[in-house]
């Protein structure tokens, strides 16, 4: 679709080193999509709900994909996921968990709460770059996002 490059990717990651590697990966992959980076669950909730400084959906559009770390200050990734899945249209936004936690119990819990996919953070920059490319090609080009994303941008 022609408008796929206008779809926003929302990254929720508190570790500044991890976030920097991830954002550099998106730059290197020449991803044209706007990438929004937030550092905690409470900000993410306000962004998704369109509250406070995020009330203008033209400036802060709903994302077509969310990359969600689980260990966050304040509201955790799991709590944010739980909140999202009982909302209206927001519940349809694809959420890919991206964490260093490889515990099978955590993986199971994330899927039980409605994570669309679960990825473990790679160990080095080259692997992160490859992962970002794969994420971009699958979720931004191949996957059909929920239509709310596009409506938000056309407003």
């Amino acid at each position, binding site marked *: 679709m022609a408008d796929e490059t206008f779809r926003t990717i929302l990254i929720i990651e508190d570790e500044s080193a991890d976030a920097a590697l991830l954002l550099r990966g998106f730059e290197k992959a020449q991803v044209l999509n706007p990438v929004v980076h937030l550092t905690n669950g409470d900000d993410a909730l306000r962004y998704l709900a369109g509250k406070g400084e995020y009330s203008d959906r033209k400036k802060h559009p709903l994302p077509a994909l969310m990359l969600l770390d689980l260990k966050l200050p304040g509201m955790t990734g799991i709590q944010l996921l739980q909140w999202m899945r009982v909302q209206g249209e927001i519940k*349809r936004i694809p959420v890919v968990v991206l964490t260093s936690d490889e515990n099978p119990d955590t*993986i199971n819990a994330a899927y039980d709460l409605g994570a*669309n*996919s679960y*990825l473990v953070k790679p160990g080095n920059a080259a692997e992160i770059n490859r992962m970002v490319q*794969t994420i971009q*090609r*699958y979720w931004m080009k191949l996957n059909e*996002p929920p*239509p709310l994303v596009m409506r938000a941008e056309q407003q």
Partner: protein
Amino acid sequence: MLSGPVLLVEDDPSDFRLIQRAFNKLPNGFEILRLTNGDDAVAYLSGDDPYENRAAHPMPSLVLLDLKLPRRSGFEVLQWLRRQPAGLCRMPVVVLTSSRHTADINRAYDLGANSYLVKPETGGQLDNLASEFRSYWLRLNEFPSFQAAL
């Protein structure tokens, strides 16, 4: 990363052949099991007759699900799956359909589809879909365990 086969639920024989051919072109391919209707998919995932033997009928790692299916539709299979006891309800489901209707996309996500793919129109696009599907789900994704359901 993928321990079990991919269960493809697709009633259209020519779509099935095209999808199978695209996946078979990939090196280090993976096993694809095919069922042609929603009732069979539910029986297979439940381990009901004639699929009781898990050695012969292994639990898939992922379901590739068409929406328009005879008997139980893809939506009904998805709804049934997400209401199963702990374990089975986690099964990742990627919808693969020819429908681009807003109502179908929304309903699939509302019922808990992990991803929604539209069947491409050309062989080249289908090859690309198979390749990207494999790169993402089979190489990158971590799968839940279904032990509780077995």
